[in-house]
């Protein structure tokens, strides 16, 4: 949809860097890793994760709501509240019918499922909570956000595993371009750090085993990387057509000028070794933006710190973007936020454009011998006219967003 200009007028973040855009952005710019030993995983084969520090749902949302909402919904409500305030919008006075909600998550509320499965096994079926389903269903992410803020426009949750947050933003862009609504709360949220889910990731061999040194475990593109560190959190963007944002005099963090979505059709978990699917998504996003691949100046890579992803993605970047863009991955700080990653990283990319500052790849010491691209070893000041945020999910789903200044 070349020529469709979408502005981002509000940002909200809950990340392992902190609660709020300020603390999260400061943490990634300082390259401060959020990984640590996690007592919830004490009996697991891998016991490290990136938790949101100091997240107190009762204080942030009231005890009553905290009791009835899974953690992945709690993160989203806190991030959405920040984003809406940042956009200068007021849910008490807005025309809710013109406000959509499009959010992504990989798994919904596994913490609630595990707790209630335990109740089933230990106490019996008649002791399972009636809140089991309304708390854990993935679509509750958008449903509860609508309830909280009175947004009665289009409302959906997308699932493309670890690309979900980015796919939600792309879908929101399409809804705005088609005129289905005037404002969209778009992004992703995830709270998957549970014993069962983390056992599953460990059995796949996907997780870093650097348990003796958790703060250096997530190290995208580094030769010594050995897997990802799971994180949790949410990223929410307020998106509007540029002319609407201008008409109400709203501040714009930047624009979403292109969206590309493809599938590898290759393997259930492994990325295509040459990154063919994500290359197609990059090309689609840039065609959507009406931009030349060689004009990309900055890439916020998927960069998970897994052996397979980082080499395949680096090869793809080298081959596809000939303008030698500066590449970062903020997962060195946040860990892998799974279904929230694409949204949180789109927000970081917009902040890079707005502040002309690319955050460093935390823990990058010596790049993998097969990685031959320009990597951000330290925070780097630079004006950015065109940036990409890449996201890839299990199942081979790829989403790329093209981002530009206001």
């Amino acid at each position: 949809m070349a020529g469709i200009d979408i502005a981002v007028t509000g940002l909200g973040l809950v990340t392992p860097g902190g609660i709020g855009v300020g603390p999260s952005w400061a943490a990634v710019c300082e390259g401060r890793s959020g990984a640590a030993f996690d007592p919830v995983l004490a009996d697991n084969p891998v016991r490290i994760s990136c938790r949101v520090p100091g997240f107190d749902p009762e204080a942030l949302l009231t005890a009553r709501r905290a009791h009835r909402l899974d953690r992945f919904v709690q993160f989203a409500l806190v991030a959405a509240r920040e984003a809406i305030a940042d956009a200068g919008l007021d849910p008490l006075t807005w025309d809710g019918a013109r406000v959509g909600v499009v959010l992504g998550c990989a798994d919904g509320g596994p913490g609630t499922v595990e707790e209630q499965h335990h109740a089933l096994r230990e106490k019996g079926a008649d002791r399972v909570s009636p809140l089991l389903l309304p708390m854990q269903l993935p679509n509750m992410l958008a449903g509860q956000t609508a309830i909280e803020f009175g947004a009665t426009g289009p409302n959906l949750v997308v699932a493309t595993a670890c690309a979900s947050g980015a796919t939600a933003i792309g879908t929101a862009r399409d809804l705005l371009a088609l005129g289905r609504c005037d404002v969209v709360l778009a992004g992703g949220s995830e709270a998957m750090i549970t014993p069962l889910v983390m056992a599953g990731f460990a059995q796949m061999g996907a997780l870093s085993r650097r348990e003796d040194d958790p703060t250096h475990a997530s190290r995208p593109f580094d030769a010594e990387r050995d897997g990802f560190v799971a994180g949790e959190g949410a990223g929410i963007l307020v998106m509007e057509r540029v002319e609407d944002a201008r008409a109400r005099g709203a501040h714009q963090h930047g624009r979403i000028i292109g969206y590309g979505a493809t599938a590898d059709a290759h393997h259930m978990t492994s990325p295509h070794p040459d990154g063919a699917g994500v290359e197609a998504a990059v090309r689609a996003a840039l065609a959507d933006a009406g931009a030349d691949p060689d004009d990309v100046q900055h890439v916020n890579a998927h960069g998970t710190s897994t052996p397979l992803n980082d080499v395949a993605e680096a090869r793809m970047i080298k081959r596809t973007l000939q303008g030698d863009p500066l590449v970062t991955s903020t997962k060195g700080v946040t860990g892998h936020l799974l279904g929230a990653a694409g949204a949180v990283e789109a927000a970081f990319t917009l902040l890079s454009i707005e502040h002309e500052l690319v955050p460093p790849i935390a823990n990058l010491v010596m790049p993998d011998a097969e990685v031959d691209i320009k990597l951000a070893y330290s925070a780097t000041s630079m004006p950015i006219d065109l940036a990409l945020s890449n996201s890839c999910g299990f199942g081979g789903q790829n989403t790329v967003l093209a981002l530009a200044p206001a």
Partner: protein
Amino acid sequence: MLEQLKEILSNKLKVSPEAITPEATRDDIELDSLAVVELSLLLKSELDIDVSDDDLLEAETVADMVELMEKRSAKV
């Protein structure tokens, strides 16, 4: 019995304690149909009182719920 109900409502269902008065209706303390099922399960597990969610839905106020609890516990 009122005190026991208050404790369950505030500690387990996280209803704000100041809202829980004998005259308070289910709406006043935000007990929807889901929360009523939770309350029924808790009355059984915490106090060993059998009150179904259907019965609780017919109780208009906290005082009515207490009356129901007293009747059912007297039977035991």
